[in-house]
């Protein structure tokens, strides 16, 4: 972390960048939040640790409108989002100075909760200075430990790798964290009966409170005006509880980002209701890979997406 | 599916060849170095498989005369690879009992002092299971 701060100070001092987009300590040790830093002093607030799961790419849309270059820290998976935004002309490459930061897998309080560690006060071992395999967690009910791996976000267990698809310089090493196949969950659902699938999604989607956290965090959901807020489809929010978007919001959202979603997993990470929203996106990714050939959004900043291209021999609807 | 269809399916699978792609130009047979020795010619192998007529192929002399020189594979304008079909038929023949074309006791008389190991090994690989 100190290395990041030192380098950042240099870049601020020599005028290469006008500001820094990073993470700062939040109200709890487990929720650092994205933040701008405008000078060396403010960097005292800067953190980079295992809890910094937040993908900063989307903030670069607004940063691209500001004067001067913005230094942004991107983890390997975040660079795909940035690249995708680049492809869609939403960010300005010239306005970004990208430091690719090492990532050893990101952890979350929700993951701790899921393994039975609740009421977290503080966590030691998430600083990433050394290879830290064990977390020591201070809770209201005393100290406990767990393996770093067990506190990792789902997306890190199926991490796409350590490659940065776009960057200016790299600091820090990344670790292999993969121990699962990212389509396993999708396959599991596909194997269920239609009734089970329906029950599963009904149960999950019923939890939605339409807080729009998923939409706000999603780097692919960057429309100036969301279709669900617009009058163009008569689909804008109304008081009525069974209005169109209440039911179809998540399907349409997944469809709108199909072929553009980099599977960054932020939607599931931020959902306050814990809905596994990534399962919808991954279904599209899996279908696209199977039907139209492997495609990885954000891998390239050029070319058409699977939904803006075709082949003469594509599968027929309803046959798959 | 009857036996012949099954065998045809098996040949298509082992060889990875789609006989439907053949446009019957005969280029494979045009330069086959073993053409004269073959009772069923390379281009005919493709039609036989396409017609699910496999029995004659597994009994064909051609199996033991194909050199696997890939001339037909290289020159085929349709990517049909007749040589791979012949090899697949050979596999099927050899996997059946008594299908071997070479036995170890034949070797001494076929051998001379310069015979490279490679020859014996290759012949064994191609001529028996």
């Amino acid at each position, binding site marked *: 972390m100190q290395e990041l701060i030192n380098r950042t100070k240099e870049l601020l001092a020599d005028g290469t960048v006008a500001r820094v987009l990073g993470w700062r300590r939040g109200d709890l040790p487990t929720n650092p939040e994205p933040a701008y830093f405008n000078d060396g002093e403010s960097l005292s607030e800067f953190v980079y640790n295992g809890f910094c799961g937040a993908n900063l790419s989307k903030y670069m849309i607004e940063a691209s409108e500001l004067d001067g270059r913005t230094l942004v820290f991107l983890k390997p998976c975040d660079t795909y989002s940035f690249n995708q935004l680049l492809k869609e002309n939403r960010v300005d490459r010239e306005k970004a100075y990208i430091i690719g930061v090492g990532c050893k897998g990101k952890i979350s309080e929700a993951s701790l909760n899921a393994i039975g560690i609740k009421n977290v006060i503080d966590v030691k071992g998430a600083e990433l200075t050394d290879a830290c395999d064990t977390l020591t967690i201070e809770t209201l009910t005393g100290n406990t430990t767990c393996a770093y791996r067990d506190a990792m976000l789902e997306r890190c267990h199926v991490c796409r790798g350590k490659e940065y698809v776009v960057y200016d310089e790299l600091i820090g090493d990344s670790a292999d964290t993969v121990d699962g196949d990212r389509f396993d969950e999708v396959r599991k659902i596909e194997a269920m009966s239609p009734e089970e699938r329906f029950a599963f999604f009904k149960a999950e989607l019923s939890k939605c409170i339409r807080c729009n956290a998923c939409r706000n965090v999603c780097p692919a959901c960057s429309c100036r005006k969301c279709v669900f807020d617009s009058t163009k489809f008569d689909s804008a929010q109304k008081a009525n509880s069974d209005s169109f978007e209440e039911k179809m919001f998540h399907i349409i959202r997944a469809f709108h980002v199909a072929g553009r979603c980099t599977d960054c997993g932020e939607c599931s990470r931020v959902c306050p209701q814990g809905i596994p929203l990534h399962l919808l996106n991954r279904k599209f990714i899996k279908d696209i890979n199977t039907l139209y050939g492997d495609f990885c959004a954000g891998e390239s900043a050029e070319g058409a997406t699977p939904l803006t291209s075709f082949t003469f021999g594509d599968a027929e609807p309803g046959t798959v | 599916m009857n036996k012949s269809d099954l065998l045809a399916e098996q040949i298509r699978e*082992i*060889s*990875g060849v789609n006989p439907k792609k053949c446009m019957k130009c005969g280029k494979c047979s045009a330069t086959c170095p073993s053409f004269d020795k073959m009772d069923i010619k390379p281009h005919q192998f493709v039609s036989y498989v396409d017609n699910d007529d496999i029995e004659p192929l597994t009994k064909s002399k051609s199996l033991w005369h194909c*050199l696997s020189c890939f001339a037909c594979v290289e020159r085929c304008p349709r990517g049909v690879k007749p040589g791979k079909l012949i090899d*697949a038929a050979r596999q099927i023949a050899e996997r059946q009992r008594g299908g071997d074309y070479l036995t170890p006791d034949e070797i001494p008389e076929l051998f001379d002092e310069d015979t*490279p*190991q490679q*020859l*014996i090994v*290759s012949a064994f690989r191609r001529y028996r299971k």
Partner: protein
Amino acid sequence: MKYSYYPGCTLKSKATALDKYARASAAALGIELEEIDEWQCCGGVYPLGSDEIATKLASVRNLAAARDRGQELVTLCSACHHVLKRVNDDMRNVDDIRTRANNYMQLETPYAGETKVLHFLEVLRDVIGFDELKKKVVNPLTGKRIGAYYGCLLLRPGKLMAFDDPENPTIMEDFIRAIGAEPVVYPYRNECCGGYISLKEKERSKYLCLDITGSAKGWGAQMLITACPLCLYNINKAAGDVLPVYYFTELLAEALGVKEAADNE
């Protein structure tokens, strides 16, 4: 420059000439050929069937050994080269074969086609360069008219072997030029000598070899060169009286002035 080296069975017995002259020449050119440990016979022919796994395992072991040494794998014999290159391609690109082969082998690190397989001629062309080779020749074979005999295995299937143009190759001709001799191009240089069929069908092989040597001689060749022990054997047996045939490494050693030393080793 260090390479893993796979000699293959015949080079340790009937084709020692192919092997020893290559080693001597390699040393003279500053290339270290390190024989991989406990290499196994590649099987001589590439098993074409998509369900053939067991017959490919020996090649996978050889390939994995080179991978574990972190080196590219150099071969000399056309047949070994053909088999190793194609099995390697299977391991890299055919999911089914890779999965099944790795399941059988239980290697410490599964093998997925990481090794690059090179023929010694490719090393001469792409690493050393024929122009450089020419500079190192001390004993040019001036005046010799040599026909390159490629046979089938080095060139085909062209897309997979990616060795040279399968219908109009130039690598051996360029090699012949580099050692100071004159290449003779003749149309049968990429036609088959009969291969393993000569074991039971000597007459057929003879017929083919006579076409090859007859054509080469007609175009003015005084000798043939080859990279394959089986081609050499078949041509020698069937048509040795028409044209002599040598391993390309023997002429290379001669041109580099290391042949005698190699013979005396």
